[in-house]
């Protein structure tokens, strides 16, 4: 009987799913993921978490609850740090504890620490510990790790080339195709678990696409470019996702083919309150492109967001005319 492992479709699922899926399946586990976020999942999450938690965490609780009766283990590694001298956010550091203490009826929990704060090389040892939940064979675990890293590499490549994560998960042959020159490009800057979750984001990316906009995100910007812009800050930013967002946003601001920027943040998100402010300041200093700041929470009504997006797109079109596109 293969061990059943459930991966919640939330938080850093959008960055690491290919790595996790391949690793666990190569070791012989059966991997289940929760479905796309729905109102029911959100409601469950709200019941289980404290009011003050940010929306992505509340939704993540909902996804965990959706999996608990279907699997032997819930896969929620403690993502302390995925890049040297950087953290993600305190909620990620404490997420497994929050889940253990607030969600009842949990099956087994895989919450091994993934901590690359000191060295990236620590990663193999940490994934090895995860592997031991399924197999005792060191060679098998090492091989699974190698295959998973290769898969991850391919996925990252596809995303950098312009695919959105969920497209890049499973369609290696399909490429996104060149942007037909007349479609204005708008950058959507926000955490992956906000912008790629169609429920939380009120389907933002799809809506923009349907309005004739070509969307790029921070994940489409190569790591070196992100880092070169992030390096212009007076002090190193110690949040991995924050650094990516600022580096990408600064790059977009400098890039004449970007016609507008939408910054998506969750209500009461700690890091976003700081990085969002810095991004907005930079845009206003340069004063050259339309900027929209969207704050999402569990009460977000479609009508309000749609109105604001329409107004923003009007600005983008006016701006496009002004600069002669």
């Amino acid at each position: 009987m293969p061990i059943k492992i459930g991966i919640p479709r939330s938080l850093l699922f959008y960055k690491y799913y290919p790595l996790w899926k391949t690793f666990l399946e190569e070791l012989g586990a059966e991997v289940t993921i929760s479905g796309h976020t729905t109102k029911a999942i959100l409601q469950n999450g709200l019941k289980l978490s404290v009011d003050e938690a940010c929306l992505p965490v509340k939704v993540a609780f909902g996804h965990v609850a959706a999996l608990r009766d279907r699997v032997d283990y819930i896969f929620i590694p403690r993502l302390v740090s995925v890049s040297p001298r950087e953290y993600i956010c305190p909620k990620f550091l404490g997420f497994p504890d929050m889940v253990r203490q607030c969600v009842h009826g949990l099956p087994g929990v895989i919450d091994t620490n993934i901590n690359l704060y000191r060295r990236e090389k620590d990663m193999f040892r940490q994934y090895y510990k995860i592997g031991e939940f399924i197999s005792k064979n060191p060679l098998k675990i090492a091989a699974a790790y190698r295959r998973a890293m290769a898969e991850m590499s391919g996925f990252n490549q596809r995303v950098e080339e312009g695919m959105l994560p969920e497209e890049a998960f499973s369609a290696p042959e399909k490429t996104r195709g060149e942007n037909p020159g007349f479609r204005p490009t708008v950058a959507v800057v926000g955490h992956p678990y906000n912008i790629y979750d169609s429920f939380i984001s009120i389907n933002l990316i799809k809506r923009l696409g349907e309005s004739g906009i070509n969307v790029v995100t921070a994940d489409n910007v190569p790591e070196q470019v992100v880092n070169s812009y992030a390096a212009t800050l007076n002090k190193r930013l110690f949040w991995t996702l924050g650094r990516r967002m600022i580096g990408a946003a600064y790059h977009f601001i400098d890039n004449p083919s970007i016609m507008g920027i939408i910054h998506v943040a969750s209500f009461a998100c700690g890091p976003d309150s700081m990085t969002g402010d810095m991004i907005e300041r930079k845009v206003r200093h340069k004063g050259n492109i339309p900027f929209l700041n969207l704050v999402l929470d569990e009460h977000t009504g479609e009508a309000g967001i749609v109105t604001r997006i329409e107004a923003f797109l009007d600005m983008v079109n006016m701006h496009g005319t002004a600069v002669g596109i």
Partner: protein
Amino acid sequence: MKVTFPHMGNLWICLNAMLQYLGVETVVPPPSTKRTLNLGSKHSPEFACMPLKLNLGNFMEASEMGADTILMAGGCGPCRFGYYAQLEHEILNDLGYNYRLVVMEPPEKSIRELLSRIRYITGNRSWLEVIRGIRFGFRKSRAADDLEIMAMKLRPREKSTGQADIALTEALKLIAETQRPEQLLTSYNSSMEIMKSVPTENRPVLKVGLVGEIYTMLEPFANMDIEKKLGRLGVEVDRSIYLSEWVNDHLFMGLIKGLRSSHIYKKHSAPYLMHFVGGHGQETLGGAVYYNNSGYDGVIQILPFTCMPEIVAQSVLPRFSQDTGMPVMTLIVDEQSGEAGLMTRLEAFVDLLAEKRDRKKELA
């Protein structure tokens, strides 16, 4: 160079001592008030935590008094505090304030880095002088903490309401105004005498432990004088963080022995919170468990709205409370917080604790 710094409880006494000893001109911002908070909130990001807004207000008010250099601490995350200085500086620049920024980052490998940045402010003083200056500041913070601990014991027992706080103000003034390190011991003894002379009577008191985010715990304006309020309700309060302990742990790397250290708390946080989560999240759980083991009647967690590590702690405290039967109340403060609301909640909580204690006595 006229140096200013943010308010956080008695921090100003410690910093003033250190800087003035080294011949640096200081501008102590006016004590934080509603005006400070309004100024800061107006120009800060909406979801920035309250300490950032108060810092900003302090700097703006200090600028009105002539300050031109800011001395701030830094951090390495994941709590936002580590990036405060940079963001505050950008905001002040955009508003037209011409401040120079000096940030003390926590020494990751050695104390030398910290000392050299202090050197920048103090110019040509010798290393010995700088270390003496730091020591003077630290000793004052220890003295101030000792006085506060005494006040917390006196308040629920004072014969006449308010005497303990009058004594505390006078005693702290004595410490703050001590010019030379040689005079500190005498001032310390005199200040202790002032506290000991407050008439008290033996009363049964409730004991409540305060846990949570450090700034809100140490700055009376942020916590709306919660210690005083609890004291007047007949509660002896213990804070899980004191300024001198924090300085010892985080800037001196625990070199000074004999002080309570946050390491005790970290050990106690299992099985509720098994890992560092930034800020004092883990210490909050550890403190709660510690207070339970020490026979306290209740625990109050206090934090600013959106404080991430404390929200993690807040999520797991209910389980702790359920497991141990220890009453826990979480108080969240921001610029909208009102005194009346706080008072009501404190009164209700203290009633609950008193009732619980009476029931325990009856059953015994």
